[in-house]
Protein backbone atom coordinates (compact mmCIF):
# COMPACT_ATOMS: atom_id res chain seq x y z
CA UNK A 1 0.00 0.00 0.00
CA UNK A 2 2.89 2.26 0.65
CA UNK A 3 3.99 2.07 -2.96
CA UNK A 4 0.51 2.64 -4.31
CA UNK A 5 -0.04 5.66 -2.10
CA UNK A 6 3.40 7.02 -2.68
CA UNK A 7 3.08 9.61 -5.37
CA UNK A 8 6.39 11.29 -4.95
CA UNK A 9 7.68 12.22 -8.40
CA UNK A 10 11.09 10.65 -7.86
CA UNK A 11 9.70 7.21 -7.06
CA UNK A 12 7.30 7.06 -10.00
CA UNK A 13 7.98 3.97 -12.14
CA UNK A 14 5.75 3.57 -15.21
CA UNK A 15 7.75 0.95 -17.05
CA UNK A 16 5.43 -1.96 -18.03
CA UNK A 17 2.31 0.16 -18.03
CA UNK A 18 2.03 -0.22 -21.75
CA UNK A 19 2.48 -3.99 -21.41
CA UNK A 20 -0.40 -4.25 -18.96
CA UNK A 21 -2.49 -2.02 -21.16
CA UNK A 22 -1.65 -4.09 -24.22
CA UNK A 23 -2.44 -7.38 -22.46
CA UNK A 24 -5.86 -6.10 -21.43
CA UNK A 25 -6.56 -4.51 -24.80
CA UNK A 26 -5.26 -7.52 -26.71
CA UNK A 27 -7.53 -9.88 -24.78
CA UNK A 28 -10.54 -7.74 -25.57
CA UNK A 29 -9.53 -7.40 -29.19
CA UNK A 30 -8.85 -11.11 -29.63
CA UNK A 31 -12.24 -11.95 -28.19
CA UNK A 32 -13.79 -9.28 -30.44
CA UNK A 33 -12.04 -10.62 -33.53
CA UNK A 34 -13.00 -14.20 -32.73
CA UNK A 35 -16.58 -13.09 -32.14
CA UNK A 36 -16.64 -11.24 -35.46
CA UNK A 37 -15.44 -14.31 -37.33
CA UNK A 38 -17.77 -16.71 -35.52
CA UNK A 39 -20.80 -14.47 -35.95
CA UNK A 40 -19.85 -13.98 -39.61
CA UNK A 41 -19.72 -17.73 -40.07
CA UNK A 42 -23.10 -18.09 -38.35
CA UNK A 43 -24.67 -15.45 -40.60
CA UNK A 44 -23.23 -17.15 -43.70
CA UNK A 45 -24.62 -20.52 -42.54
CA UNK A 46 -28.02 -18.92 -41.87
CA UNK A 47 -28.13 -17.37 -45.34
CA UNK A 48 -27.23 -20.71 -46.90
CA UNK A 49 -29.91 -22.47 -44.83
CA UNK A 50 -32.53 -19.94 -45.98
CA UNK A 51 -31.55 -20.55 -49.60
CA UNK A 52 -31.88 -24.30 -49.15
CA UNK A 53 -35.25 -23.86 -47.42
CA UNK A 54 -36.53 -21.68 -50.30
CA UNK A 55 -35.30 -24.08 -52.98
CA UNK A 56 -36.60 -27.18 -51.19
CA UNK A 57 -40.03 -25.81 -50.37
CA UNK A 58 -40.54 -24.61 -53.95
CA UNK A 59 -39.67 -28.08 -55.22
CA UNK A 60 -41.98 -29.68 -52.63
CA UNK A 61 -44.82 -27.31 -53.53
CA UNK A 62 -44.34 -28.08 -57.21
CA UNK A 63 -44.63 -31.81 -56.50
CA UNK A 64 -47.67 -31.19 -54.28
CA UNK A 65 -49.34 -29.17 -57.04
CA UNK A 66 -48.58 -31.75 -59.73
CA UNK A 67 -48.83 -35.05 -57.86
CA UNK A 68 -50.50 -34.31 -54.55
CA UNK A 69 -47.52 -35.68 -52.63
CA UNK A 70 -43.83 -34.95 -52.26
CA UNK A 71 -42.19 -37.65 -54.35
CA UNK A 72 -38.73 -36.53 -55.29
CA UNK A 73 -35.49 -36.65 -53.39
CA UNK A 74 -34.79 -33.11 -52.31
CA UNK A 75 -31.16 -33.62 -51.30
CA UNK A 76 -29.81 -31.67 -54.24
CA UNK A 77 -31.48 -28.51 -52.99
CA UNK A 78 -29.44 -28.35 -49.81
CA UNK A 79 -25.80 -28.18 -48.83
CA UNK A 80 -23.63 -30.49 -46.77
CA UNK A 81 -24.61 -30.71 -43.10
CA UNK A 82 -28.12 -29.39 -43.59
CA UNK A 83 -31.15 -31.43 -42.60
CA UNK A 84 -34.78 -30.72 -43.46
CA UNK A 85 -38.11 -31.39 -41.85
CA UNK A 86 -40.16 -34.13 -43.51
CA UNK A 87 -41.76 -32.72 -46.67
CA UNK A 88 -45.56 -32.80 -46.51
CA UNK A 89 -48.37 -31.29 -48.55
CA UNK A 90 -50.70 -29.23 -46.39
CA UNK A 91 -53.82 -27.71 -47.91
CA UNK A 92 -52.31 -25.51 -50.55
CA UNK A 93 -49.33 -24.75 -48.38
CA UNK A 94 -46.10 -26.42 -47.34
CA UNK A 95 -43.38 -25.37 -44.94
CA UNK A 96 -39.82 -26.65 -44.80
CA UNK A 97 -37.32 -25.90 -42.07
CA UNK A 98 -33.63 -26.37 -42.76
CA UNK A 99 -31.38 -27.00 -39.78
CA UNK A 100 -27.63 -26.89 -39.61
CA UNK A 101 -25.41 -27.22 -36.57
CA UNK A 102 -22.87 -24.40 -36.44
CA UNK A 103 -19.78 -24.88 -34.31
CA UNK A 104 -17.89 -21.84 -33.15
CA UNK A 105 -14.64 -21.70 -35.02
CA UNK A 106 -12.51 -19.75 -32.56
CA UNK A 107 -14.47 -19.25 -29.37
CA UNK A 108 -14.94 -22.99 -28.85
CA UNK A 109 -18.52 -22.09 -28.05
CA UNK A 110 -21.11 -23.88 -30.14
CA UNK A 111 -23.66 -21.52 -31.66
CA UNK A 112 -26.14 -24.37 -31.69
CA UNK A 113 -28.49 -25.05 -34.58
CA UNK A 114 -29.36 -22.57 -37.28
CA UNK A 115 -33.03 -22.94 -38.25
CA UNK A 116 -34.41 -21.25 -41.32
CA UNK A 117 -37.94 -21.85 -42.62
CA UNK A 118 -39.67 -21.15 -45.89
CA UNK A 119 -43.32 -21.54 -46.85
CA UNK A 120 -44.63 -21.99 -50.37
CA UNK A 121 -48.23 -22.01 -51.53
CA UNK A 122 -49.89 -23.28 -54.64
CA UNK A 123 -53.19 -22.60 -56.26
CA UNK A 124 -54.91 -21.95 -59.52
CA UNK A 125 -53.54 -19.53 -62.03
CA UNK A 126 -55.54 -16.35 -62.27
CA UNK A 127 -53.50 -14.25 -64.64
CA UNK A 128 -50.99 -15.12 -67.33
CA UNK A 129 -49.67 -14.24 -70.74
CA UNK A 130 -51.02 -16.70 -73.27
CA UNK A 131 -51.22 -17.37 -76.98
CA UNK A 132 -53.96 -15.32 -78.75
CA UNK A 133 -56.53 -18.14 -78.85
CA UNK A 134 -59.33 -19.18 -76.55
CA UNK A 135 -61.01 -22.57 -76.26
CA UNK A 136 -64.44 -23.43 -74.87
CA UNK A 137 -64.67 -25.23 -71.54
CA UNK A 138 -66.79 -27.99 -73.05
CA UNK A 139 -64.34 -28.41 -75.88
CA UNK A 140 -61.60 -28.97 -73.35
CA UNK A 141 -63.63 -31.82 -71.83
CA UNK A 142 -60.68 -32.67 -69.59
CA UNK A 143 -59.27 -35.58 -71.54
CA UNK A 144 -56.91 -37.83 -69.66
CA UNK A 145 -53.63 -36.03 -69.23
CA UNK A 146 -51.24 -37.19 -71.90
CA UNK A 147 -53.84 -38.20 -74.49
CA UNK A 148 -52.87 -36.91 -77.91
CA UNK A 149 -55.61 -34.73 -79.40
CA UNK A 150 -55.94 -33.02 -82.76
CA UNK A 151 -57.56 -29.62 -82.64
CA UNK A 152 -59.10 -27.95 -85.68
CA UNK A 153 -58.95 -24.22 -85.39
CA UNK A 154 -61.25 -23.42 -88.31
CA UNK A 155 -63.76 -26.18 -87.65
CA UNK A 156 -67.00 -25.16 -89.36
CA UNK A 157 -69.09 -27.32 -87.04
CA UNK A 158 -69.01 -27.32 -83.28
CA UNK A 159 -67.72 -30.85 -82.71
CA UNK A 160 -69.11 -31.27 -79.27
CA UNK A 161 -72.26 -29.35 -79.99
CA UNK A 162 -71.51 -27.36 -76.91
CA UNK A 163 -70.16 -24.17 -78.32
CA UNK A 164 -71.68 -21.26 -80.10
CA UNK A 165 -68.52 -21.06 -82.17
CA UNK A 166 -67.05 -23.30 -84.83
CA UNK A 167 -64.72 -25.73 -83.16
CA UNK A 168 -65.08 -23.96 -79.89
CA UNK A 169 -62.08 -21.84 -80.76
CA UNK A 170 -61.79 -18.15 -81.23
CA UNK A 171 -58.98 -15.78 -81.91
CA UNK A 172 -58.25 -12.95 -79.59
CA UNK A 173 -57.96 -9.37 -80.67
CA UNK A 174 -54.19 -9.17 -80.57
CA UNK A 175 -51.51 -9.24 -83.18
CA UNK A 176 -48.76 -10.22 -80.74
CA UNK A 177 -48.13 -13.78 -79.66
CA UNK A 178 -48.41 -12.97 -75.97
CA UNK A 179 -51.74 -11.76 -74.58
CA UNK A 180 -52.34 -10.87 -70.93
CA UNK A 181 -55.43 -12.76 -69.74
CA UNK A 182 -57.17 -12.71 -66.37
CA UNK A 183 -59.32 -15.51 -65.05
CA UNK A 184 -62.84 -14.34 -64.16
CA UNK A 185 -62.25 -11.45 -66.55
CA UNK A 186 -63.45 -11.07 -70.09
CA UNK A 187 -61.61 -10.70 -73.36
CA UNK A 188 -62.70 -9.58 -76.83
CA UNK A 189 -62.40 -11.85 -79.87
CA UNK A 190 -61.94 -11.53 -83.62
CA UNK A 191 -64.29 -13.58 -85.80
CA UNK A 192 -63.18 -15.27 -89.00
CA UNK A 193 -60.19 -17.33 -89.93
CA UNK A 194 -58.07 -14.72 -91.73
CA UNK A 195 -55.35 -14.46 -89.13
CA UNK A 196 -55.34 -18.11 -88.06
CA UNK A 197 -52.08 -18.77 -89.83
CA UNK A 198 -50.32 -16.25 -87.61
CA UNK A 199 -51.99 -17.65 -84.51
CA UNK A 200 -50.72 -21.12 -85.34
CA UNK A 201 -47.25 -19.69 -85.68
CA UNK A 202 -47.69 -18.22 -82.21
CA UNK A 203 -48.59 -21.67 -80.91
CA UNK A 204 -45.76 -23.45 -82.57
CA UNK A 205 -42.86 -21.25 -83.44
CA UNK A 206 -42.92 -17.82 -81.87
CA UNK A 207 -39.87 -15.61 -81.84
CA UNK A 208 -37.38 -16.49 -80.50
CA UNK A 209 -37.83 -19.77 -82.28
CA UNK A 210 -38.65 -22.61 -79.91
CA UNK A 211 -38.55 -26.18 -81.04
CA UNK A 212 -41.59 -28.41 -80.73
CA UNK A 213 -42.87 -29.96 -78.61
CA UNK A 214 -43.64 -26.80 -76.76
CA UNK A 215 -46.07 -26.16 -73.92
CA UNK A 216 -48.40 -23.19 -74.30
CA UNK A 217 -51.10 -21.81 -72.05
CA UNK A 218 -54.53 -21.62 -73.61
CA UNK A 219 -57.31 -19.66 -71.87
CA UNK A 220 -60.64 -21.43 -71.48
CA UNK A 221 -63.90 -19.52 -71.72
CA UNK A 222 -67.32 -20.26 -70.34
CA UNK A 223 -69.64 -21.71 -72.97
CA UNK A 224 -72.78 -20.88 -71.03
CA UNK A 225 -71.79 -17.26 -70.48
CA UNK A 226 -70.94 -16.99 -74.15
CA UNK A 227 -74.26 -18.44 -75.22
CA UNK A 228 -76.15 -16.13 -72.87
CA UNK A 229 -74.87 -13.06 -74.68
CA UNK A 230 -74.67 -14.70 -78.12
CA UNK A 231 -70.96 -13.95 -78.48
CA UNK A 232 -70.43 -15.10 -82.03
CA UNK A 233 -66.70 -14.68 -82.45
CA UNK A 234 -66.48 -11.21 -80.96
CA UNK A 235 -66.91 -12.09 -77.34
CA UNK A 236 -66.60 -10.86 -74.77
CA UNK A 237 -65.52 -14.24 -73.46
CA UNK A 238 -65.65 -14.96 -69.77
CA UNK A 239 -62.34 -16.65 -68.97
CA UNK A 240 -62.59 -19.51 -66.49
CA UNK A 241 -58.99 -20.62 -66.28
CA UNK A 242 -56.06 -21.93 -68.21
CA UNK A 243 -55.09 -25.22 -69.79
CA UNK A 244 -51.58 -26.22 -70.77
CA UNK A 245 -51.25 -27.81 -74.19
CA UNK A 246 -48.02 -29.44 -75.24
CA UNK A 247 -48.06 -28.80 -78.97
CA UNK A 248 -46.24 -31.53 -80.88
CA UNK A 249 -47.21 -30.70 -84.46
CA UNK A 250 -49.23 -28.59 -86.82
CA UNK A 251 -50.51 -28.62 -90.38
CA UNK A 252 -51.95 -25.77 -92.39
CA UNK A 253 -51.86 -24.71 -96.02
CA UNK A 254 -49.29 -27.36 -96.83
CA UNK A 255 -47.03 -26.38 -93.91
CA UNK A 256 -46.51 -29.37 -91.71
CA UNK A 257 -44.39 -30.08 -88.66
CA UNK A 258 -45.51 -33.44 -87.33
CA UNK A 259 -45.04 -36.11 -89.99
CA UNK A 260 -48.02 -38.12 -88.72
CA UNK A 261 -50.30 -35.19 -89.49
CA UNK A 262 -49.43 -35.20 -93.20
CA UNK A 263 -49.58 -32.23 -95.51
CA UNK A 264 -53.26 -31.92 -94.88
CA UNK A 265 -55.10 -32.27 -91.63
CA UNK A 266 -56.50 -35.81 -91.15
CA UNK A 267 -60.11 -34.65 -91.36
CA UNK A 268 -59.66 -31.62 -93.56
CA UNK A 269 -62.91 -32.00 -95.44
CA UNK A 270 -65.22 -31.97 -92.43
CA UNK A 271 -63.25 -30.15 -89.80
CA UNK A 272 -60.84 -27.73 -91.42
CA UNK A 273 -57.39 -27.29 -92.77
CA UNK A 274 -55.77 -25.55 -89.79
CA UNK A 275 -54.96 -28.10 -87.16
CA UNK A 276 -52.57 -28.59 -84.30
CA UNK A 277 -51.76 -31.77 -82.45
CA UNK A 278 -50.75 -32.07 -78.87
CA UNK A 279 -51.71 -33.21 -75.42
CA UNK A 280 -52.98 -31.49 -72.33
CA UNK A 281 -50.44 -31.58 -69.55
CA UNK A 282 -50.40 -30.69 -65.91
CA UNK A 283 -48.32 -27.63 -65.59
CA UNK A 284 -46.87 -25.47 -62.87
CA UNK A 285 -46.21 -21.83 -63.47
CA UNK A 286 -44.52 -19.03 -61.61
CA UNK A 287 -45.14 -16.49 -64.30
CA UNK A 288 -48.66 -15.41 -63.55
CA UNK A 289 -50.54 -14.36 -60.45
CA UNK A 290 -52.24 -16.85 -58.16
CA UNK A 291 -55.89 -16.42 -57.32
CA UNK A 292 -59.37 -17.82 -57.70
CA UNK A 293 -60.12 -19.54 -60.99
CA UNK A 294 -60.93 -22.98 -62.29
CA UNK A 295 -58.11 -25.49 -62.35
CA UNK A 296 -57.63 -26.96 -65.81
CA UNK A 297 -54.38 -28.62 -64.88
CA UNK A 298 -52.42 -25.41 -64.52
CA UNK A 299 -51.36 -24.32 -61.07
CA UNK A 300 -49.27 -21.57 -59.64
CA UNK A 301 -46.52 -22.04 -57.09
CA UNK A 302 -45.08 -19.17 -55.14
CA UNK A 303 -43.01 -18.46 -52.06
CA UNK A 304 -45.28 -17.19 -49.31
CA UNK A 305 -42.75 -16.46 -46.60
Amino acid at each position, binding site marked *: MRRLNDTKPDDR*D*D*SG*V*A*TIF*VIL*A*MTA*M*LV*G*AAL*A*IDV*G*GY*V*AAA*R*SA*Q*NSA*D*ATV*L*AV*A*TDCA*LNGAPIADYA*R*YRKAGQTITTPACGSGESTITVTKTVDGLLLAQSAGDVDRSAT*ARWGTLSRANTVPLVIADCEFRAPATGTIVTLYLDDPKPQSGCSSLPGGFSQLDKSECSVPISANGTVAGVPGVGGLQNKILCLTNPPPA*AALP*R*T*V*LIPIYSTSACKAIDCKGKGPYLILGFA*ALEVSGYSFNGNVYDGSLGKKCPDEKDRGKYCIRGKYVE*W*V*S*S*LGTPGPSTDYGVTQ*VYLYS
Partner: protein
Amino acid sequence: MSRILKSHRHDDRGVVALEVVLVMPILLMLIIGTVVLGNFLNLKTQTTGLARDGARAASISRPLPADTMVVGAACANPSDPTKFVTVQATKTVSLRSIPFLPTVLPDKITETVTMRCGG
Protein backbone atom coordinates in the same frame (compact mmCIF):
# COMPACT_ATOMS: atom_id res chain seq x y z
CA MET B 1 30.32 1.89 -24.42
CA SER B 2 29.54 0.33 -21.05
CA ARG B 3 30.03 3.73 -19.50
CA ILE B 4 27.33 5.16 -21.75
CA LEU B 5 24.96 2.35 -20.89
CA LYS B 6 25.73 2.65 -17.18
CA SER B 7 24.94 6.32 -17.26
CA HIS B 8 21.47 5.50 -18.63
CA ARG B 9 20.77 2.57 -16.26
CA HIS B 10 18.06 4.44 -14.37
CA ASP B 11 16.84 6.42 -17.30
CA ASP B 12 13.53 4.94 -18.53
CA ARG B 13 12.57 7.67 -20.94
CA GLY B 14 11.33 6.24 -24.23
CA VAL B 15 10.34 2.87 -22.79
CA VAL B 16 6.67 3.42 -23.54
CA ALA B 17 7.50 4.51 -27.07
CA LEU B 18 9.60 1.36 -27.55
CA GLU B 19 6.83 -0.88 -26.25
CA VAL B 20 4.34 0.80 -28.56
CA VAL B 21 6.68 0.27 -31.50
CA LEU B 22 7.02 -3.42 -30.64
CA VAL B 23 3.35 -4.02 -30.04
CA MET B 24 1.85 -1.82 -32.78
CA PRO B 25 2.51 -4.24 -35.71
CA ILE B 26 0.77 -7.05 -33.86
CA LEU B 27 -2.14 -4.78 -32.96
CA LEU B 28 -2.43 -3.54 -36.53
CA MET B 29 -2.34 -7.09 -37.87
CA LEU B 30 -5.14 -7.99 -35.50
CA ILE B 31 -7.27 -5.00 -36.46
CA ILE B 32 -6.65 -5.38 -40.20
CA GLY B 33 -7.21 -9.12 -39.90
CA THR B 34 -10.61 -8.54 -38.29
CA VAL B 35 -11.55 -6.13 -41.06
CA VAL B 36 -10.30 -8.45 -43.82
CA LEU B 37 -12.05 -11.54 -42.43
CA GLY B 38 -15.22 -9.60 -41.69
CA ASN B 39 -15.23 -8.27 -45.23
CA PHE B 40 -14.66 -11.79 -46.58
CA LEU B 41 -17.55 -13.29 -44.60
CA ASN B 42 -19.83 -10.42 -45.57
CA LEU B 43 -18.92 -10.96 -49.22
CA LYS B 44 -19.55 -14.70 -48.85
CA THR B 45 -23.04 -14.05 -47.48
CA GLN B 46 -23.72 -11.61 -50.31
CA THR B 47 -22.53 -14.14 -52.89
CA THR B 48 -24.81 -16.81 -51.43
CA GLY B 49 -27.74 -14.39 -51.66
CA LEU B 50 -26.81 -13.52 -55.22
CA ALA B 51 -26.65 -17.20 -56.18
CA ARG B 52 -30.13 -17.68 -54.73
CA ASP B 53 -31.50 -14.72 -56.68
CA GLY B 54 -29.87 -16.09 -59.83
CA ALA B 55 -31.29 -19.57 -59.27
CA ARG B 56 -34.77 -18.18 -58.72
CA ALA B 57 -34.50 -16.07 -61.89
CA ALA B 58 -33.20 -19.04 -63.87
CA SER B 59 -35.94 -21.34 -62.58
CA ILE B 60 -38.63 -19.05 -63.99
CA SER B 61 -36.65 -18.12 -67.12
CA ARG B 62 -36.01 -14.54 -66.17
CA PRO B 63 -32.76 -12.63 -66.93
CA LEU B 64 -29.93 -13.48 -64.56
CA PRO B 65 -28.43 -10.80 -62.30
CA ALA B 66 -24.82 -9.71 -62.86
CA ASP B 67 -21.98 -12.03 -61.77
CA THR B 68 -24.14 -15.14 -62.02
CA MET B 69 -24.19 -17.94 -64.57
CA VAL B 70 -26.09 -21.16 -65.13
CA VAL B 71 -24.07 -24.33 -64.53
CA GLY B 72 -25.22 -27.15 -66.79
CA ALA B 73 -28.56 -27.06 -68.57
CA ALA B 74 -30.88 -24.07 -68.32
CA CYS B 75 -34.62 -24.40 -67.80
CA ALA B 76 -36.84 -24.62 -70.84
CA ASN B 77 -39.52 -21.98 -71.27
CA PRO B 78 -42.28 -22.87 -70.46
CA SER B 79 -40.58 -24.74 -67.65
CA ASP B 80 -40.41 -28.46 -67.16
CA PRO B 81 -41.02 -28.98 -63.41
CA THR B 82 -39.16 -32.29 -63.42
CA LYS B 83 -35.89 -30.55 -64.25
CA PHE B 84 -33.72 -28.38 -62.06
CA VAL B 85 -31.18 -25.68 -62.61
CA THR B 86 -27.97 -24.75 -60.80
CA VAL B 87 -26.71 -21.19 -60.76
CA GLN B 88 -23.25 -20.12 -59.70
CA ALA B 89 -22.44 -16.66 -58.37
CA THR B 90 -18.88 -15.38 -58.29
CA LYS B 91 -17.50 -12.32 -56.54
CA THR B 92 -13.93 -11.05 -56.45
CA VAL B 93 -12.32 -10.59 -53.04
CA SER B 94 -10.35 -7.34 -53.06
CA LEU B 95 -9.26 -7.33 -49.42
CA ARG B 96 -7.56 -10.65 -48.85
CA SER B 97 -4.19 -10.28 -47.17
CA ILE B 98 -2.97 -9.31 -43.72
CA PRO B 99 0.42 -7.49 -43.52
CA PHE B 100 3.42 -9.75 -42.68
CA LEU B 101 1.33 -12.90 -43.14
CA PRO B 102 0.94 -15.19 -46.16
CA THR B 103 -2.30 -14.71 -48.10
CA VAL B 104 -4.70 -17.49 -47.22
CA LEU B 105 -8.01 -16.13 -48.50
CA PRO B 106 -9.09 -17.09 -52.03
CA ASP B 107 -9.26 -14.34 -54.65
CA LYS B 108 -12.79 -15.33 -55.66
CA ILE B 109 -15.86 -16.53 -53.77
CA THR B 110 -18.06 -18.95 -55.65
CA GLU B 111 -21.42 -20.14 -54.36
CA THR B 112 -24.00 -22.34 -56.06
CA VAL B 113 -27.73 -22.77 -55.48
CA THR B 114 -29.93 -25.40 -57.12
CA MET B 115 -33.65 -24.86 -57.69
CA ARG B 116 -36.49 -26.69 -59.39
CA CYS B 117 -37.42 -25.37 -62.82
CA GLY B 118 -40.71 -23.53 -62.90
CA GLY B 119 -41.28 -23.89 -59.16
